């Protein structure tokens, strides 16, 4: 944990910084001039950002800044109007959500999207869809492959659930879990797809301080254990400043600052975006 905090951030060509340890590896995400318009509105414009192979990156900004839209662009829920992004150095133009997931992007959702009527275990097993494969015919005929693969899926699901100590709830209906546990289950499900980068959309929303503290440990654990990158959107500044290595601040669809937590904390433009100019603020109140 301490070690990750000490990591030095170094600049890369796209005007971003990545952890020094990731220098030799292909960055997991490289966005260049990514943008999308909704009608006449430029929801995201000129988004340039690089995420290192094992980096924990943060995306912050006021409400409506376009953060979730960027996740939607990175998962091809929306097709970018302009620009492109590379996944592990591979071009992503013309790919759809499913292909992007197979290329290594998994995500959670701001408004939780679990398979609420299914069991917790089944939710994770659905995440294992493309890693634990067998045909429909195998399942109808209950061939030996079915039993083998189902056992494999079950074991793997339990293993993943154990990250958050959730094995005991495996048989529960996902929708009946407490809010915090639902958010954690979404992370487990996303991890099950064997991603190279995990996009977390407000993972701490609705969690109490002790749950948030635990989540921070979990996020670092996931990165260290699975050797993947994590990019998160979060309003909890304590979490962002503690776990993120590189941060981009978004306002009105544009990046207004990029840097390490320390740099962001002291950035004039960021302070202005969040709380307005000091003088005006006094006038208002």
């Amino acid at each position, binding site marked *: 944990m301490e070690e990750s905090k000490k990591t030095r951030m170094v600049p890369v060509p796209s005007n971003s910084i990545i952890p020094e340890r990731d220098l030799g590896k292909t960055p997991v995400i490289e966005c260049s001039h990514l943008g999308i318009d909704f009608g006449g509105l430029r929801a995201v414009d000129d988004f340039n950002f690089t995420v290192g192979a094992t980096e924990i990156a943060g995306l912050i900004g006021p409400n409506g800044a376009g953060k979730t839209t960027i996740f939607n662009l990175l998962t091809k829920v929306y097709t970018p109007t302009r620009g492109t992004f590379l996944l592990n150095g591979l071009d992503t133009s013309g790919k759809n959500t*499913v292909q992007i997931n*197979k290329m290594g992007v*998994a995500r959670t959702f701001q408004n939780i*999207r679990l*398979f609420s009527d*299914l069991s917790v275990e*089944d939710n994770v097993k659905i995440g294992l*869809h493309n890693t634990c494969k067998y045909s*429909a015919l195998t399942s109808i005929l209950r061939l030996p492959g079915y039993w083998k693969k189902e056992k494999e899926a079950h074991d793997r699901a339990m293993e993943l659930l154990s990250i958050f100590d959730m094995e005991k709830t495996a048989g529960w209906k996902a929708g009946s879990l407490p809010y915090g546990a639902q958010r954690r289950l979404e992370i487990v499900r996303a991890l099950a797809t064997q991603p190279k980068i995990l996009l977390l959309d407000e993972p701490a929303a609705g969690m109490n301080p002790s749950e948030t503290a635990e989540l921070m440990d979990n996020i670092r654990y996931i990165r260290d254990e699975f050797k993947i990158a994590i990019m998160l959107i979060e309003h909890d500044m304590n979490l962002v400043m503690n776990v993120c290595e590189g941060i981009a601040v978004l306002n009105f669809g544009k990046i207004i600052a990029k840097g390490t937590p320390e740099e962001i904390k002291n950035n004039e433009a960021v302070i202005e975006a969040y709380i307005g100019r000091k003088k005006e603020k006094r006038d208002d109140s």
Partner: protein
Amino acid sequence: MSRKFKNYNKSSKFDFITYGVVIAAFIAVSLMSSQGILGRSHQGLLVPACCYIVMAISLNLTVGVLGELSLGHAGFMSVGAFTGIVVSMSLQSAVPFVPLRLGIAMLAAAVMAGIAGIIIGIPVLRLRGDYLAIVTLAFGEIIKDLINSLIVGVDSRGLHIIFNFRGNKSTADLHLLDGGTEIIKGAQGATGTEKIATFTAGFVLIMVSLIIVLNLVRSRTGRAVLAIRENRIAAEACGINLMKYKMTAFAISAAIAGAAGALYGLNYSNLVATKFDFNTSILILVFVVLGGLGNMLGSIIAAAVLYILPEALRGFADYRMLIYAIVLILVMLATNNAKLRGIFEKIIPRRKKGDA
């Protein structure tokens, strides 16, 4: 086995209960009919009851498991029925062994209905919700009209098929050789079909459909289909190809309906295409909804009871369909109104929807 498998075992156990109930019912009914407890008119209901049970299982796969409302399921039954009739009548001399011929006919019917399912599924499954429902209704009606104008005959040269779109053609236009058989005669439908459907075949078909559907639901494919029902966007984010799995479920559902149709068609010497209209589709949907979405045993019981009910109400003559309608409304109100449901749940604990 360890505690970890508890949940899995629970759903498996319910599957075995389903199989058990079907087998027990088959044995009971067979005994009753061999002991002469069942009258002739009741015996005549057995095969169609089996067909409707299979239809309900099949539609439950589309509506309950996949979560898409289909209002044209009778169309697939119709494709199956007339395919089955044509195959069976054409093979009359080639395959004299009746059970084998029935099996071939049902298999061919399943294949044809499955193909129809894929062709219809391509446009239909791109739509959502009520739009999807209305398009399935439209396809059901189109199938009905097409088969209604179909004229088919067989002779020593093979199968002859013509479409009577303008109402100016008849079986004479088939130009059959001597000894040929007219199988389907346009709006008159199939006449003179050899009745080869049996209750045992119906039982086997129910069991096979159940095995296919239940085994599918509790597998990787089934979970993918359920995931699409539960949350389309999250399913896609998990790398599930929506179209592929929607299509798999829809085509299997159509194929099973086709087999049921073949059995149904081969149970009557006369059959017209208008039998498989919108009302038949609705009838099957009622079985599925009353039996419980995703609950196969529920579908089976609902189909059996509701198919027999109007017959049991024969004593009420003219009032029977009125009573049926009132019962239907009251049951829907009783099971779906929060207050009334609370009372019911205390008496009968309901199963979770996810256990399917």
